[in-house]
Structures are given as structure tokens and as C-alpha cells.
């Protein structure tokens, strides 16, 4: 009787083992369209990288603030002095930060003398690492969090019809987004189930910025 039980268990274990797959599923890549790369997505939407870098600067500054407070020093004064130093940076460096695709992201024309433009300066000031003398180099070295970039597509981009890569020549004739969905998404949905998701997957025309459906 006991042997029978043992054999049954062995059989059961064998069956379970045979049915299971050794393939490890990856929840990150599973939800993304074929050919998706974080770098490619970031290239189409540089704003994501800009926000990421700003967050990074913010975390750094919060750490500096925390350390200074522990030492009993006034953070506000240190920050004000450092901000003044940032504003007084070499205009060429400021222009570079302003025009960088992933930093300021402003057109080159607006970046001739950023210090003169109050709105741009306010934006750029958020790139100031407090206590770091060479801000530009530090900014270019901020590590890219690819997970945060690619998951934005899963959480928001795809449903809102964001292009995930540049179009190739064959795709330029494909239709764009459905106007009804664009209109529906322009207003905030009253509840989660009233939200109209865009079922399509799009690429972007690098020249015009127009969206085209990707054939699946």
C-alpha cells in the first residue's frame, strides 16, 4: 500500500515536471511590441529622459540638503549660492544644456543666450546639481533607467497612441491615429471603464513628426 502511494507521488511529480516550461517569462518584455527598445523609445520621446534627469538632480540635491541639515548648516543659502553660480556659467555651456535633446530640448535658435530668457532659465535651473562644479559633465553621465522608460510605454504610451520608434520608408503610407480616439482622449475620462484606449501601435515619421500605424 505504501509503495503504491510512493509510486503515485513519483508519477505525479513526473507529470508536473513534464508539463512545466523551463522558459522564464519576462514581464517587462512580454508586454512590449516586437522590436521595442528603451533607447529607441527614448529617442522618439526625449521628454522622458529630460524628466528622468531632473528627478536624478532632485534626489541628489535632497541628499545634499539632508547631509547639510545633519551638520547644522543652512541648505537654502548653499543652494542660492550654487544656483547663482549655475546661472553665471559659461554661456556656451548653458547654451549646450539648453539645446541638448535630452536636457533642455529647446530649438537651437532659443538657446543663443538662455540666461536672457526667464522661462528657459527657470527650466534649466532644475538641472543644477548643488555642490557639483561641472554640472554639464555630470548631467551627461546620469545613468539611463531603461526600465522606467520602457514601462512608461506599457503604463501610458501604448494606450495613448505614442509612437514607439521611428518609421521606416515602407510605413510612411500607413494611416495615422483614429480622430475619434484622439478626441475621446483629449478629455479626462470620468471613470476607468469609460477610458477609450488606442488599440493601435504607431511609429513616428522622423521628418514631420506624424504618426503611422505599424502593421502587425
Amino acid at each position: 500500500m505504501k509503495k503504491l502511494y510512493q509510486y503515485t507521488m513519483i508519477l505525479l511529480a513526473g507529470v508536473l515536471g513534464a508539463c512545466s516550461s523551463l522558459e522564464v517569462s519576462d514581464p517587462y518584455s512580454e508586454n512590449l511590441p516586437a522590436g521595442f527598445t528603451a533607447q529607441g523609445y527614448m529617442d522618439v520621446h526625449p521628454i522622458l529622459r529630460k524628466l528622468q534627469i531632473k528627478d536624478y538632480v532632485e534626489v541628489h540635491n535632497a541628499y545634499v540638503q539632508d547631509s547639510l541639515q545633519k551638520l547644522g548648516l543652512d541648505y537654502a543659502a548653499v543652494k542660492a549660492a550654487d544656483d547663482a553660480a549655475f546661472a553665471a556659467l559659461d554661456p556656451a555651456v548653458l547654451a549646450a544644456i539648453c539645446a541638448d535633446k535630452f536636457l533642455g530640448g529647446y530649438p537651437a535658435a532659443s538657446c543663443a543666450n538662455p540666461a536672457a530668457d526667464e522661462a528657459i532659465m527657470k527650466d534649466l535651473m532644475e538641472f543644477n546639481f548643488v555642490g557639483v562644479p561641472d554640472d554639464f559633465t555630470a548631467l551627461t553621465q546620469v545613468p539611463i533607467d531603461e526600465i522606467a522608460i520602457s514601462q512608461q510605454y506599457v503604463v501610458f504610451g501604448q494606450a495613448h497612441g505614442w509612437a514607439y520608434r521611428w518609421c521606416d520608408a515602407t510605413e510612411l503610407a500607413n494611416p495615422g491615429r483614429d480622430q475619434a480616439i484622439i478626441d475621446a482622449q483629449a478629455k479626462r475620462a470620468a471613470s476607468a471603464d469609460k477610458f477609450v484606449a488606442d488599440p493601435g501601435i504607431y511609429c513616428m515619421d522622423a521628418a514631420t513628426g506624424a504618426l503611422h500605424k505599424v502593421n502587425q
Partner: protein
Amino acid sequence: MNFNMNMRKFLLTSAVAFSAATAFAAENQAEVVTQQKSLLEKLDSLNAAVLGLKINGTAKAGVLASFSSSDQYAKESPTQENQAFTDVDLRLTARPSSETMIDVELRLHKDWQNSYDENNNPIIGHWFSYDGTILNKHVDFNLGYMRVGYTPLTVFAPQTEILQEPEIFSEKRREALAKRNLDTTSRRLLQGLNVAYNSGSVGAVDNITAQLTGARLRNTGKKVDQVFFDFDFSDRYMLGARAGVESYGAHLGLNFVNLLDRKLTRRSRQIEDTDTIYYDNNRVFSADLSFDSKKALPTLPVSFGLNGEFAMSKWKVDRDYLGKEVKVSYKVVEKNINGERIVYIKNASTTSQAVVNQDYVDESGNSFYANLFAKGDINDIDFKVEAGYLKTDEKFWSEMASSPVYQGRAVILNANALYTNPADSLILATYGASSLENLYFNVYNSTTLQAYNLMTSANTNSLSNNGDLFGRQNGESGYLYSRLDNNYKNGHFYRNGYTGNVAKRLELDPLMELDPSVGLALPFGLATPDRKGITAKVDVNWADKVFFNARVNMLTQANSLGIDPATGLAQIAENKFTEFAVGIGADIGALAALDRQILVQGSFSQAKENAYLKRTAKRIVAGVTADVWGPIALLAGFQQYEKEFGNGFGFGGAFGEMNVAVSVLKASERLIMGGIRVKLAPISYLSVQYGMLTNDLDYAYAITGADGALTAAGAEKLSISKNIITADVTVNF
């Protein structure tokens, strides 16, 4: 299951067979054993080993008055300190069987000076042990307090050696040690379990020994009061094991000792921001070999032999402190970019405090020594000559063998004195009073517990409300940790230069090395790290009438600190130690064939180093112990001790706004004592003594104010002299 059944059956049968075999063997021995046992019991009963309870002990009543004077005292400084006490040490021994014994020692101490404010006087127990020799005297065990010694490189207590120390001094030293539960042997005072097995003669082997020791050690000075009396959450343990074989006068042994901090208990408290907690682990493994020709050639008047040991050590420290831990989490955030609402994923890395564990030290080293000796007894001349070589790596560390029982640096008598110059106060606080005072005097008080004596004050010598090192009022002393040793919650307090604590290497106060009373060349005994050289010893005793001793040590420390003569900067230098000591004693009474002892003793010793602080220590000892008439004996002693710091010994401290830096150049100490002792009963005495203790210190100092400007500087001399009178009656019962 079938298999199990078979196995059980097999085990059962074999167990039966085995027990049958042992029972058979036991039956044969039974007769011999009972015979032996009855014989031993008879012997034991002769040896006062009567079953039941026995009480004996010592009662001492007396006074100790010390009158001190110094030009450096402040006008309002107290100059007199009195102790009037009755001290009773009770020893209770109970024998539940002829083989084992329970030993409890209690101390009752009444201070007549403060008797009016003692509402109740606690009795403290200072020895609890259960000892025995069991299993046909093959196994010795100690449970509780015990003294254990293995070998000079594993478990050992380095002791002070003063050649031909007159009885008036040695008795005082023994008494100061006893107040700390210590004795003059090189065994360590421990609390735990010790089991030793001796096989006795087995064929060609004379003895096979095996020993296991486990003890709980003091870990750190405690700063925070525990909720439940004195239960210390910081545990530290010692585990020791050794085994040996003896045959034909040769002994071969293997020894192992491990000291460890138990992390779990130390971390039961939250670490504070500025805390760093160290976990020490010290392991030593050694092999010792000795040979004595006496056993192989018993007929020769001279025997010779050797003893040596090789040890390997590992010292590992890791530490915990609060560090930052970065935690990455993602937040979905909505943001308005140029009028368009977008959602993106924010990398929200937060930093939080977390305990960081870090390896701090990991060192291993070897140590080796070998001694050759010859000893004998020719025409009533008993002699022993010994010479040896030792070599210890800089990285060798054996904690259990390295902490000397004498640590000094306390202020024993007139500790309440006040000084005009803050440099003098600093010297007394850091460098301590004279080493002769520390070697020979101790004060034992029972005082009502109060916040003052449970904490330490910033001012070293008295209970004062001066600020601490950070200028806080009523602050704790910056030397708090080093003084917690004196903190007995029972209300019994010491001022004593001895300690039984096993100090960790990180704790070992560098100042401890500066008092050559314990040995300039080998402050931590044979286990002193970074030493190489030769030692030699001669001891001669002619029929207990004339005694002669000599010691020579020539050692080198390869990696000592030195000073470059050209630049005046510190550099690594080789330090050569040269030590020698000669002592001679004669019992004139015995030489002149009188019926009384008139022992005259004297010795001279000098120790020198040629680098580091360029210290020189000289000691002259002389004394007389004489039976004058009937029960009256005269005791006298003289000792002069001088230590010079060629390169000056510097230290600093802060007093409120002032910063004081001191460099001690020379210390000259002298102690003259004399007195009479009257024998009242076989081991009961009345003793009256007078002593004069002087301590002169030459030093240079500089005082700077809060702004860093020099306010005072110069060369000074601190000289304190103390007149000491003691009178006491000691009764043994």
C-alpha cells in the same frame, strides 16, 4: 520501514553486547575501585575534608591615613584622607561529597568614615565556585570562579616581577591583588566551566591530559544602565581546549583558545548615529614542547631540559555602523508638459539608514620561544639557570595571554587633591599617580550609591561639577570607559591599580605600555607582539640562607616609532631594549645560627630602549624583615624608581575653554616604609606602619585659550609627598 526495523534490531543487539563487555570489565575493577575509594576517603577525611559546611576567613580592622603636601596644590585643596574600616572576608566551604566542594567567599566592609549615611551595608560575594576531582581522580572540574592557565602564548596572566621585594611591600601588593580577586600566579581569573582530564600512567606514557575551558568575559565598559540589575547584553566568550602527552620527562601539548564577541546580543540595542560597534575575534593555536632530564636520569645532581612553544594567531575585527542604503522604487507620475498631460514613470530612489557591516582588521602572525635550562642541588645550593630565544611577529596577537594584571595609572591616595595648574590636573588624570603608589596601595570603600559615584565626573580625581571635555557642566568624563571598572553597583568601590580584565587589542590603552613596572621590553609577557631577542635568568638559593637572582633581556622591536634626528619627524625605527636586574638576599639570623629570621634584601634593575620615547627605568629595592623579640617583628622597605622619557611623553586634554598639552620628561618616585608586626595568635597579627611616598615629575607644558592663543607655557615640576600611617589587626579563623 523494513530496513529501519533491521537497523533497530542490530543496534539493540550491539548495545547489549557492548554493555555486557563493559559490565564484565567493570566487575573486574570493582574490587580495586572500592579498595582505592575507601583508602582515599580515609586520606581525604584526614585532610579536613569532612562532609558538611565549614566557615573560615579573615577579619581585619584598621585605619589608613594619608597626609599629603605639595607646592602645586591649590590653597583650598584637601590634604588629608582617612580610611577607618572593618573588613571581614568569609569563606564558606560545603562538601556535598568527598569529591566535590562548593566555595563561596563573601566580603563585609564597614567604612567608619561614612557609617552615618549608610542605611544598610551590602555584603558582596566575590567568589562562587563548585570544584571537584571526580571519576577516580581522573577529572578535575571548576564551575564558577576559577583560575586557569595554559601556556605563555595562549592563556596566561603576565605578572610584575620585582627581585627581592621585601615582605612589607610584597604583602601590600598581594593584598591589593586580592581585593581584585587576583593572586600572584600566572593563571587567569575567569568565570565559567573548566574540565581537565588526567589519565595517569598508561604503559610507557606517564600521563595524557585533555582540558576544556569555557568562560564569559567582560566585553566593554557599560555606559547605559540596564533594566535588570547588571545583566550585560554585550557578551564575550572564551573557548579553550588543550591536550597533551607526557612520557620519559618529555611533554608535548596542543593548545587552542578562541575569544569572540557574540553579535546577537551586542546588537540587541539600536545603533545610534555616531556609534560604531566592533566585533572582535581572536584565535590562537599553539604547540608546546618541554623536556626535563630528571625523569630519565634521576641520579644526576644536575638536570637539564628545554621548553618551547610555537603559536599561530588570527585576529579579526568587523564593525557595524549606520550607513545609507539606497532603495529604488518606481512611481507613476502625471505631469503637465506644455499643456499636455502625460504620465511617466519616476525613478524614486530613496535613501534610508541601514546597518552596514564592514571588515575592519584581519591579521595573522606567529610567535615562537625556546628556553634551555639547567637546575640542580649541589651541596645545599639549589640553582636554576635558564636562557632562551623568542621571536614574535608584529601581527601576532593573543588576547588571553596579553593583558597584565597590573595596569596602574590610578590615583590611589589623596585622590581628592586640587591643583592650581591645569597641567597638573591633566597629568594626574591621564598619566596617573606614581607607580609605587599603584603597586602597593589600594583603597576599598563601601559607599552609599548615588548618581555621583555611578557616573564618572569630568574632573578625574574628585567628584566635581567641572565641565567635561566638551565644556558641558556636570558632564561625564572623557575617560568614562576606562573608569567604569571602578563601578560596582553594590556600593563597594575600589581605588586599585590592578585588574583581572582581558582587554581587547583595540581597547588596550597605549599608556599601559608606559609603566615599566610590568616590564619595559615585554609589557604583555612573552606574547608581546613584534619582539625578537634573548632572555636569561639565574636563581640561586643556598640553604634558604642566601638568595641570588639575575635577569637579562635583550630584545628588539623592528617596527617601533622613532624620530628622525635630521627632520624631527616620526618614522619607523628599530627599537632595542636592554634590561637587566640583580637581586641578593641573606637571612642573617640563619647565617649566624640564631633562632630567628633576619632577612636583608636588595636589588637593582635597569631597563632601557634606544628609540620610540627613549625610556629608561631604574629601580633600587632594599628591605629588612626581622624577628626582633618574641612575637614582635620589624619590617622595613625602601624602593626608588625612576623613569625617564628621553623624547618626552606627550598627551593633551581640555579643561573648559583651555587646551592643555603636556610632555612628561622624568618621574622620580620613592617609597620608604617601616613598621612592627606583633603576632597575636598563630595567624593573627597587629601591625603598625609608617610610610613616606614621594613623586616628582618633570614636565613641559603649554596652555592655549579658546582662540588658540598661547596663554601659558614652560617647564614645571610637580612634586607630591605623602605621609602614610596604617594600623590594623588581622585575625584569621
